[in-house]
């Protein structure tokens, strides 16, 4: 794969995830302002319905991919020391993968304990 293709791919992924994240943010503002969850029951029931839970998982995936492309661009632009850039990229990468696994675990455990 050429450098151009990988750059274009990242650019495209950034835009596609941005559109989803923009709509979810607007929906999030709307939900938390007008339907503020006030009890544990109503909150978990809402979060763990299949469409909402899938929407949150998709949000998590798109958010982390979006963050990766963005932070990678920033590190490439400003961190001139190759070793330092590599260390920071690895740290960010680990943080992103850990966040994804943690978020997945949170929702999975909540779903399982709801069904138990």
């Amino acid at each position: 794969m050429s450098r151009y293709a990988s750059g274009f791919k990242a650019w495209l992924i950034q835009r596609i995830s941005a559109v989803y994240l923009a709509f979810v943010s607007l929906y999030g503002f709307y939900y938390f302002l007008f339907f503020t969850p006030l009890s544990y029951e109503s909150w978990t029931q809402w979060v763990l319905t299949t469409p909402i839970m899938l929407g949150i998982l998709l949000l998590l995936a798109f958010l982390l991919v979006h963050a990766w492309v963005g932070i990678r661009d920033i590190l490439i632009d400003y961190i001139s020391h190759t070793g330092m850039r590599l260390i920071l990229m690895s740290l960010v990468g680990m943080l992103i993968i850990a966040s994804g696994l943690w978020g997945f675990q949170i929702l999975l455990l909540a779903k399982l304990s709801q069904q138990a």
Partner: protein
Amino acid sequence: MIKKSERPVFLNLFQIRLPIVGIMSIAHRAAGILLFISIPFWLYVLELSLSSVEDFDRAASLIKSLWLLPFYIILLWALIHHLLAGIRYLLLDIDIGIEKPAFRYTAQSVLYATPILVLILLGVML
């Protein structure tokens, strides 16, 4: 002898004087970093809120606590700035607002609209 151009080019932020579009752009990056750093905090709140009734109440009092207000104001600014500037970029991608005076006005609008929206949202939420 022609000097070969040195690539890649690394930018030194302290030597660059930015026009307003640049200020909006760098703020979009800074906001993105702030939002990224806050992800573990929000995952923690999510985990707490879904764990049990008591933990839900703890999560609720945590996000309502006043000592975190400065942190929320910054994150709210970051989210709204990143969202508005991001929508501007997406519109630029499809050639909307790409003409010479327009792209400056939209950048200014993003910079000025964000604090106003933050204040309105804070007013509604508090």
